[in-house]
């Protein structure tokens, strides 16, 4: 048994609430109408290729990547485009979306829909990157960074470690956990494809200690498809954060302001690896993903295979809600964003929808900072949130930048553990926004 690894400084242990880790992935089916945003990733919105009245099939390219940091968008249903206009997202801001009225379920012919596992990798490293680009794959852990950029290694850099992130340290979320339990072989093949594209020396799938079933199935899968190892990591939040995971697995540290590649590492989510497997081996572009619907206000928490563009309300209806919604969060409770629009579509980066009761979403009264330094102890980046808080209150953004507020990964450990209940993360976010705006 290999040693259980973790990152060195900070971290917290929030309650897990993994209500749906034993519930099998259910196909959510096809809703009547889907609205597909053309910007589901970091970077430029994709250029729209379809217009009102156009007929599309499942997997048809509907928007083309605009530039390098952008991603293709494919239709997730078959039917007719009824409008292309600005529609509200989860945060309420209008964004360009393609609305499609569903008619039947006709797929593009070249998609391999058989359940057989294709283990032989025939595509060359160059082809792999091209297929990933054409399939519109982005980081599915939550950030949505276009994957083709990440799998193109800059000149003079080497990839020592390819780390697949199967940590899922956010409470409630179980989408990656279920995917690892049910599709472990595909993930391992996906890892091998990535490893070939990156020419990685070592390929490691990192899994959280509290997912024994996923560890078991993954270990079985790496026994069949050689060349990949499984690393068990301690259950600690934010173990799944890119920089923390690199420290845990490789013992290296990403330099301040640098990228993982500067430490010779590339981190990909297991969901992304699965999407890459489907794209390269099955010719299937990214148009569906696994979404956890959970929270203390749902009848039955579950994991659903959802077509991109499905309205959130459709999924909430499937899970059933007990009372009037108190708070809805897109993503996990620690880093997710509270939503204002129940009809917001599922995107490539939606890992979960949480529905919380009013009383569990309340914010307690804030009292003055007592300088206990709990926030300093828990910060996994080694920052001083209390200091940032007092600087930002006085509008001293330059000083905050000097104490490296830009290195904040917005994990929320500080605000979670503050005994005075100061929204420390809000201050850090504000500082980051304002400093970046000035640049």
């Amino acid at each position, binding site marked *: 048994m290999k040693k259980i690894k973790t990152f060195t400084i900070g971290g917290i242990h929030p309650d897990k609430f993994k209500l749906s880790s034993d519930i099998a992935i259910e196909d959510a089916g096809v809703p009547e109408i889907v609205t597909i945003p053309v910007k589901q990733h970091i970077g430029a919105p994709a250029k729209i290729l379809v217009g009102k009245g156009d007929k599309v099939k499942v997997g048809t390219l509907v928007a083309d990547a605009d530039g390098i940091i952008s991603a293709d968008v494919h239709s997730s249903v078959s039917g007719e485009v009824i409008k292309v206009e600005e529609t509200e997202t989860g945060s309420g801001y209008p964004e360009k979306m393609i609305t499609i009225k569903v008619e039947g379920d006709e797929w593009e012919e070249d998609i391999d829909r058989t359940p057989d596992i294709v283990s032989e990798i025939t595509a060359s490293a160059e082809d792999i990157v091209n297929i990933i680009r054409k399939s519109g794959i982005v980081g599915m852990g939550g950030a949505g960074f276009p994957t083709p950029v990440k799998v193109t290694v800059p000149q003079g850099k080497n990839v020592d470690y390819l780390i697949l992130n199967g940590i899922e340290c956010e409470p409630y979320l179980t989408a990656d956990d279920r995917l690892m339990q049910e599709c472990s072989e595909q993930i391992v093949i996906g890892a091998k494809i990535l490893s070939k594209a990156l020419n990685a020396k070592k390929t490691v799938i990192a899994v959280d200690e509290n997912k024994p079933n996923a560890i078991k199935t993954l270990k079985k899968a790496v026994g069949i498809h050689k060349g990949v190892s499984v690393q068990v990591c301690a259950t600690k939040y934010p173990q799944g954060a890119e920089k923390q995971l690199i420290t845990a697995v490789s013992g290296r540290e990403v330099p301040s302001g640098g990228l993982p590649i500067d430490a010779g590492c590339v981190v990909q989510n297991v969901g992304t690896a699965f999407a890459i497997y489907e794209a390269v081996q099955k010719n299937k572009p990214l148009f569906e993903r696994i979404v956890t619907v959970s929270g203390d206000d749902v009848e039955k928490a579950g994991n659903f295979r959802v077509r991109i563009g499905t309205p959130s309300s459709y999924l909430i209806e499937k899970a059933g809600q007990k009372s009037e919604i108190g708070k809805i969060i897109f993503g996990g409770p620690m880093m997710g*964003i*509270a*939503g*204002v629009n129940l009809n917001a579509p599922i995107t490539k980066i939606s890992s979960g929808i949480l529905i919380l009761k009013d009383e569990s979403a309340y914010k307690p009264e804030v009292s003055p900072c007592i300088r206990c330094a709990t926030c300093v102890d828990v910060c996994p980046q080694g920052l001083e949130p209390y200091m940032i808080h007092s600087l930002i209150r006085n509008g001293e953004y330059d000083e905050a930048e000097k104490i490296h507020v830009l290195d904040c990964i917005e994990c929320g450990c500080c605000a979670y553990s503050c005994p005075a209940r100061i929204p420390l993360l809000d*201050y850090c976010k504000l500082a980051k926004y304002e400093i970046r705006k000035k640049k």
Partner: protein
Amino acid sequence: MGMTEIILFNIAILSVIAVVAAIVLFFIAKKFKVEPNIMAEEIAEILPQANCGACGSAGCQDFANRCASSNADEFRSLYCPVGGRNVMIKIAQKLGYIAEDHEPTVAVLQCNGSCENAPDKVDYVGLKSCRLASRVFVGKTGCPNGCLRLGDCVRNCPFGAIEMNPKTGLPEVNPDKCTSCGTCIRICPRGLYEIRPVGANGVRVYVACKNKQKGATARKNCKSACIGCMKCAKICPDIKVENNLSYIPTTVSAEQYGKELASACPTGAIVYTGEKK
């Protein structure tokens, strides 16, 4: 050594150090002497010392330096909006120039999304900061261009000229205190403030809306949104309506058109500060 000798010895040593240091400092002061700009110092004393940067300089001292080193032509383009015309006349007297006539201005809020016009749709429990909230979500009212009603402008106004009206939920500018320094323009994440002339008898007319969405979408969130109906443009041809949003240029006379424009606007997006009909 006795006690007296120690004391005397110390006094002697310290005296020597004092004399040497004094000589060194004397020569340093001679060599690095800075001629004080007396004119700039005197101008700085006249200035309000708010250091707000509204004049475009780094602060009051910087502005004073610029005044002192300007010629008559350059001086005409310099203006301290906080001190206003009175201060500029005083500075002009000192320099022997003529102070240019500047129309007094005031900041106006281009949003009428009060609690009544644009009711809250959701609760916001995060940090009370417009700049943070605008990044996180669209705002309690649902309008992507409207006032977030969290008061960043109130907290940051260096003259205390902006106050939150608890009834409407909107910040209100006190024209007597406002110096049009422009801090609110820089602070507001939605860019809702505009500096406009105070106008004859303090009467102004402007469009209190920045929403560029289609009329029906905008009205869903706010009763007093500009829907781009063109009614105002028919009354006064100087008014331009672009992207479903009207803008009244500062050249349009409020006394001449104000009343008519405000009563013609079907949503009440046009604000007229004079007497209502």
